C-alpha cells in the first residue's frame, strides 16, 4: 500500500511540474508583425473569405480583400501544446455532435387539367418574420459547440458561454475534460506520428453559430498570437 502511494505521488509530481502550458517560440515583434502581414497578404490576394484569429485582441475577424466583414469577440481561450505566434492554416473540416441537416424539397403534384394560379403574396400587416416556421437552414439551426479541424494537426474547439449555476458546473466539467483528454489525445497522435495541438475558444452563443455558419472547408485561417497566453 505504501509502495502504491509513493508511485502515485511520483506521478502527481510529474503532472504538476511538467508544464503543459502552451509556449510560443520567441520571435521579435517587428518580425512577427511582418510575418502576420505577409500571411494576410497571401490570403487577401485571393477572392475568398478568410478568417483571422487575433488572440491578443481576443477577436475573430471575417475578412475578404483586407476588408473586415464581421468581427466576433472571444470571451475565453485555452491552448494545448506548442504553437507558433503566427501561423496560416486551411480548414479541413468541421465537426459537431448535432450537425445541421439540409431539408429536401418536396415536389408538388402537378394538376393535369388545370394550371394552378400563381401564389398570391399575403396581404395585411406582416407577421414578425421570425415567428413564421419555414423549412430552411438558418443561423438558429447551427450548433454553438463544435470543432474546427485545421491542417497541420490543430483542432479548435468552440463552446458557447453561458450563465447560471448549471453552466458553472458544465464549465468545471469541461475544464476537467480538457485537462484529462488533451494529454491522451497527444499520446494518441504521437503514436500515429501526426502533429497535434488544440485551442479552445469560448464565444457568445450567437457568435459561435455565426462562425459555424460562415466558415467552410478550404477557408484560410490565420492565427496571430503576438503575446504568450
Amino acid at each position, binding site marked *: 500500500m505504501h509502495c*502504491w502511494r509513493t*508511485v*502515485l505521488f511520483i*506521478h*502527481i509530481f*510529474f*503532472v504538476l511540474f*511538467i*508544464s*503543459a502550458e*502552451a*509556449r510560443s*517560440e520567441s520571435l521579435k515583434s517587428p518580425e512577427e*508583425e*511582418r*510575418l502576420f502581414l*505577409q500571411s494576410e*497578404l*497571401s490570403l*487577401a490576394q485571393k*477572392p*475568398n473569405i478568410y478568417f483571422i484569429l487575433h488572440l491578443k485582441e481576443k477577436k475573430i475577424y*471575417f475578412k*475578404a*480583400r*483586407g*476588408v473586415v*466583414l*464581421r468581427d466576433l469577440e472571444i470571451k475565453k481561450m485555452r491552448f*494545448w*501544446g*506548442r504553437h507558433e505566434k503566427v501561423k*496560416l492554416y486551411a480548414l479541413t473540416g468541421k465537426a459537431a455532435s448535432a450537425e445541421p441537416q*439540409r*431539408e*429536401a*424539397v418536396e*415536389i*408538388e*403534384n*402537378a394538376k393535369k387539367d388545370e394550371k394552378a394560379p*400563381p401564389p398570391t403574396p399575403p396581404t395585411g400587416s*406582416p*407577421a414578425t*418574420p*421570425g415567428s*413564421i416556421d*419555414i*423549412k*430552411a437552414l*438558418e*443561423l438558429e439551426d447551427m450548433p454553438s459547440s463544435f470543432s474546427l479541424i485545421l491542417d497541420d494537426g490543430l483542432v479548435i474547439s468552440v463552446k458557447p458561454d453561458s450563465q447560471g449555476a448549471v453552466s458553472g458546473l458544465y464549465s468545471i466539467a469541461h475544464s476537467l475534460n480538457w485537462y484529462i483528454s*488533451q*494529454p*491522451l489525445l*497527444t*499520446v494518441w497522435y*504521437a503514436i500515429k506520428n501526426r502533429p497535434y495541438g488544440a485551442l479552445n475558444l469560448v464565444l457568445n452563443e450567437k457568435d459561435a453559430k*455565426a462562425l459555424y*455558419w460562415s466558415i467552410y472547408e478550404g477557408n484560410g485561417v490565420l492565427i496571430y498570437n503576438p503575446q504568450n497566453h
Partner: protein
Amino acid sequence: MLKRARYIIPAVILVLFLSLECLGYYLAGRSSVATDEARHAKKTEGARAAQPNGKPSVLKKKISSLSPKGIYIVIDTARNRLYLKKGDVTLREAVISSGSGNVLTDPSGKRTWVFDTPRGEHSVKSKIENPDWVKPDWAFVEEGEEIPSNYGDRVESGMLGDYALAIGNGYLIHGTLYTRMLGRNVTHGCVRVGDEDLEYVFKNTPIGSKVIIF
C-alpha cells in the same frame, strides 16, 4: 494475499492512466521548434515567394490596396443583411432574404440543386429594370411540372420587383413580393431586397462593383 489482489488491478489501471497523462503532458511541452519552423517555412515559402519582403507599413499598404475601390456590396447570409459600402462607410443597410440551403432532386435522380447563396467575391455583371423571371429548370421540377421546350413559357413578369442586379451564374439581387419573409433564409439562392432599399442599391451601384457574400 487475496485482500491485496483486490487493490492491484485498479491500482495498475490508475498507474497506467497516470503514466499516459504524464506522457501526454511531456509530449505537449516538448520542444519541437525546429520541426514547427521547418513546417511553417515550407508552407509559407510558396506564399512568400510572390511577396516582397517589406516593412510592415509597406505590407499594410499592399493589403489595403486590394480592398474594393468605390462602391461595393457586402451580404451577410447569416443575419440576412446587405450593406452598401464605400470604403469603411456603410451607405445603406438592408434586410434581405438569402438561400434556404434546401436540396431538390428531380424525380429521375439525375439532377440535384442546392439552394445556397454563393459565398465569396462576385461583381455586378449587369443591371436590369423591370426584370422578368426566366424560370430555370428547378422551378418546374419543384412544382412537378414539365420543363417547357419553348423559351417563352419560362418567362414570368412581376416576380422580381422593379430592379435586379446580376452577379453571375444566374444569381440576382432583386425585389420580392414576399416582403414579410425578409430576414429569413427562404430563397433559391438569389438575394431578395425590399423595394426602397433595392431602388437605392440599384441607383448607386455601378456595373463592375464588387459583391462580397459570406
